[in-house]
Every structure is written in structure tokens, then in C-alpha cells.
């Protein structure tokens, strides 16, 4: 494999160096590192490689979090455990800024987005254009402690959804960093409106990994010109395939593989979604399993089960 066939952090034949380089780049997903090392360097079970990567990253993070002397080759201090934009951060944004960030997050998976012109007097704030459909979002900003209620859902149901331009949305959704009440979910179900609340956003933010600095750039670019925002987004590394292949509106998945730079969480408390593509069979299908994916448990449990077996042995 030649150098230009892999990601920039990957140096063929240099596993420690590659892990270190990937650690420095906080946008690199651990699962992506495991993918590359498993494909090109290490003939070992995935869980073993993951453990290797996470422990190496921990060591590097620890080393870099301690004061360094002048012999440190890195001239500028860096935050290896750089945090990512999360749901709590989202509660501090106004509607338009939040709509922008959510649009960027969605477009990282697929498609493109546009913000609805405030002059349109529409209840919709954000349109997500996918290949065959458009989803219209009513963005609700809420303090963390206050829930997303049925009134918010009703506001979308009864509001003006004409946006004055672009495709009409085929699917409506109410989206908020707050947690939806049961009543809100019930009303939404009655009106075939999707609810995207804190649980789902937590997964999105963990998967798309926007740093606060990047969020700042995005919001600044949005106020300047849309093409500048587009350019900024186009410069970002693509999401790992396993993440990009998911439908972010499949609200069945709970929390995600990696939350922050704190990699110890990977093997302890982070939920992992079904690691393969999952299609709900159409009604009236024989021989296919019907399931409510929200009842699934953490799919990282298989690896932890094995790890626990080994711990019990030692």
C-alpha cells in the first residue's frame, strides 16, 4: 500500500506512529483507526485492536496532559482530549444557529440542507434534502431542564409549513436538544411527525464530532455567505463509512461509539449501534425479523462480554 492510499495520519508499517498521529487529530474516529489497522497492519480480532488503540491513546493523552519541557518537539500545546460540541452546548444556541449546526450535522451523513427564510413566516426552520425526499424541521430551543412538549409538536402540526422555495417536505420533524415528553411523542405519532430530541442529538453529535472551534467557524461562515459555509463543510474529512451509512433519522439508535476524546469510555459505558445495515421489512413479509430497534441493547456488549470473561480468568 502506498502512502497516498491511506488517511493522512496512517504511516504503513508504523502502528504506534499512526495511532499517535490519529490521536493528535481529534476528529479521527477510533473505529476508523481500528478499520485501517485491521485492514493493513494487524491480524487480530477487532476488540484486541480497539483495546490497543484506546490504551495507546490514553497513554498519549496522559503524556500530553502533563507539562512538557523545552525538548518537547511540539512547539504549541494542544488539547488531545479536545471536546466535541454536545447537547448541552446546543441548548445555548438560538433557533437559527441551532438550525445551522443541525443542518451541518445532517449533511455530514448525506444530502444537503437549507435554512428557511425567516420572511417566509414558516413554522419550519430547516430543510434537509436527501436523494429522494426532503425533511422539514421545526427547531425548538429549550433550556436543558425543560422538556419538549406536545405543544411544540402541535405548533408544527397546525403551523404554516410553506417555505416559499425549494422542495416541499415529505416528512416533518420537531427537533430539540430537550427531552420529549411521552405526550409529545404520542401527539407526534398521531400526526406522523418525527421527534428528534436530546437522545438522538447526543448520537448525532458524537458521530459527527464537531469541535467547538469548528462550530464557531460554521456559525461565522453562515452569517457571511452560504457558499463560504459550503466550502467549510466540503473541507471536512468524510465520516467513517459505518457512521455515514446510517440514517440519522433512524431514531432507534441511542448513544454512539465515541463521545469525547476520553477513550476509556469506549469499552465501558458507551452504547454502540447495530454494526451492520438494518432494514425494517415491509409489513406482510415472511422470513424477516420485525423488531423495535429502540429495545436493542448496546451492541458493544459482545466485546465487553469477551473482555469480562478474560478478566474473570486473570
Amino acid at each position, binding site marked *: 500500500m502506498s502512502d497516498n492510499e491511506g488517511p493522512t495520519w496512517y504511516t504503513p508499517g508504523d502502528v504506534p506512529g499512526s495511532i499517535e498521529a490519529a490521536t493528535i487529530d481529534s476528529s479521527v474516529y477510533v473505529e476508523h483507526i481500528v478499520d485501517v489497522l485491521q485492514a493493513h497492519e494487524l491480524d487480530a*480480532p*477487532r*476488540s484486541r485492536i480497539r483495546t490497543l488503540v484506546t490504551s495507546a491513546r490514553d497513554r498519549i493523552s496522559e503524556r500530553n496532559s502533563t507539562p512538557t519541557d523545552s525538548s518537547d518537539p511540539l512547539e504549541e500545546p494542544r488539547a488531545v482530549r479536545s471536546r466535541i460540541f454536545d447537547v448541552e452546548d446546543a441548548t445555548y444556541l438560538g433557533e437559527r444557529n441551532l438550525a445551522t449546526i443541525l443542518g451541518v450535522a445532517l449533511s455530514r451523513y448525506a444530502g444537503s440542507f437549507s435554512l428557511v427564510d425567516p420572511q417566509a413566516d414558516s413554522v419550519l426552520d430547516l430543510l434537509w434534502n436527501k436523494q429522494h425526499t426532503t425533511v422539514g424541521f421545526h427547531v425548538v430551543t429549550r433550556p436543558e431542564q425543560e422538556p419538549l412538549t406536545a405543544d411544540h409538536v402541535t405548533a408544527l402540526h397546525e403551523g404554516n409549513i410553506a417555505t416559499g422555495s425549494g422542495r416541499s417536505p415529505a416528512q416533518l420533524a420537531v427537533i430539540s436538544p430537550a427531552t420529549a415528553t411521552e405526550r409529545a411523542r404520542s401527539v407526534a405519532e398521531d400526526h406522523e411527525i418525527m421527534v428528534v430530541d436530546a437522545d438522538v442529538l447526543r448520537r448525532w453529535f458524537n458521530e459527527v464530532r464537531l469541535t467547538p472551534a469548528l462550530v464557531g467557524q460554521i456559525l461565522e461562515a453562515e452569517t457571511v455567505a452560504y457558499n463560504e459555509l459550503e466550502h467549510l463543510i466540503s473541507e471536512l474529512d468524510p465520516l467513517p463509512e459505518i457512521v455515514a451509512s446510517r440514517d440519522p433519522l433512524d431514531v432507534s439508535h441511542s448513544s454512539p461509539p465515541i463521545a469525547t476524546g476520553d477513550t476509556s469510555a469506549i469499552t465501558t*459505558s458507551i452504547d454502540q449501534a*447495530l*454494526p*451492520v*445495515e*438494518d*432494514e425494517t421489512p415491509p*409489513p*406482510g*413479509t*415472511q*422470513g*424477516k*425479523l*420485525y*423488531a*423495535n430497534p429502540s*429495545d*436493542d*441493547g*448496546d*451492541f*458493544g*456488549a*459482545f*466485546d*465487553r*462480554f*469477551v473482555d*469480562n*470473561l*478474560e478478566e*474473570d*480468568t486473570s
Partner: protein
Amino acid sequence: MKFEFTEEPTEVPIDGNKSVSVEPKQPWPSAYRGSRYSIVMDDSFDDHAVLKWEHRDLSIFAAAPNKLRQAMVLIGKSQGLGSFRITAAGEVLTKVKASAYDNIDQAPISEGWVPVYLGKCRGEIDFGSVDTNPKPPTNEVKVWTSFPFNHGERWSVSSTGELVWNWRDYQFVSAFDHSDLVERYAAYRPNPGRLYITEHGHVWVNVPHNDVLPDKQAEIGEAVIAWKTDAESRGDATTLRLVNRRLVATSRSEDPADGQLPIHLGHLRDFDNGVIPKPIVDDQSYFLAVGQYEQVWE
């Protein structure tokens, strides 16, 4: 082999070191047990009857076998619909409301729901993405990839090494010796626990990570990794989900990794000359208890 249902008699061991031949449509004189399926009418199938396996939100459908449904109709099940069981010997059982049952004079109870023997089945119901007759492990173990709920007769390995069929306070010991099977169980788990035997003779058990004999831990770990790698490479969401759900359902913490992994121990033909465990019901009050409802909690 394609699923076949035939109305034929079966031998059932009973109390007093005896056995009886039971004809189709006669009351079932033993424990009501086995894999649970049902024939249902479902809107999404244009009101055609289909065969269903389910557990909570999980469900999967197959074509309803005509002969079986016909037998269900003739025994008094409205439209041939309702739940039925298949024992480890392939015996098909159902419950018939006493008031609609022609052979009520032969039954040990006169009201409620009478367990009735319908006939025998051979071959596999075609559930598509779920194979109810997976290839058994040869030397070591595999992850159990078929249904992890409502699948198989639920037996317990007692502290004295017997196979016991438990339900509520009833405990019925198997009529036969199963020392090979119990030895196989004990090779992996040091403590008494459950063991499931399906209609195709497969034996699967629950394995918690902290109750596996040390010399088997690596083998089980490797079985999990091999199964998971294979499932991911084939994009098999079904097996990943079914095993995941077993862990979730049996975990006592919020972490499914603390649950019990379904492990395929082998096939009955590999133990004790292939003898099939059969409980001896030695307490007639069992029939009163089990006949109280069509569906009973297990």
C-alpha cells in the same frame, strides 16, 4: 427438510415407571412444554393465516402449515388459530377450551384449557433469516443463533446432576438418564442452571461471563468473536439482534454485557445415545394449574 405434520400416536412416560400411547386429539398426559409458535390472522398479510414466532416486540412470520391448521380447526380452535408447542420429540401440543373439546371425558380437568396432543412434526418451519435447525458445534461450542426466547423445552440441571423440568412449584424429573448431557453442561458451567432443548434436538444454555469454568472461557470468547465477525461480514442484523436481546433480557444491570450469552452446546444425538428427555408428571394437580389459562407464565 420441509416441515411436515402428521397425525400419529406418540409414547409418553407417566408415573409408575410406565408409558402410554397417546393418539392425536387426546388429552396430553405430561408437561405442557416446548417451542412456542402460533397461527394468527394478521392484517398485514391480507387476513391470511400465518405462523408466528414472537417475543415482546420481536416477531417473525412463516407460512402456516395447512395440515396443522386443519388439525387445529378440527380440535376446536376457532379458525384453526392459536398458540401451539412443539416438544423436543416433535410432538405438537395445543390447549383447547374445555367447553369446545370433544374428548373432555378423557381429560383430567373439566373446565379451563385442556392440553391436547395433535400429532408429530418433522422438518423445519421456514423462518427465512432465522434457522431453527443450525449446524451444531462439533467439538467446542458456538453462539446459539436461532430463537433465544420461547424456543425449546426448558430444563434445569439440578445440583444432583438430574435433568428436571420446572414450572412454578412443580418439579418433574426426566424418565431417563442423561449423564452425558449433564456432563457436557457441567464442563462449561460449574453451577446448576437452565438448558433448552429444541424440536430439532439442539441443546443451548445461558452463559454468564462470571459463571464459566476457567478452562472454557477462552473457547467461549473465541466462539463469540468468530460468530460476531461472521455476522458482521455477512451483514446479518438478525443474529446480532437476537443475541443482543438475550443479553439484555438476562442482564441484572444496565449493561447487557452482564447478561447471559446463549451458547449452542450440541445435539441430543451426541449424548446418551440420543435419548430425548421426557418429564414424568407425578402430581395430578399440575393439570389443574396448567389448565387455568391458555397461556401460562413460564
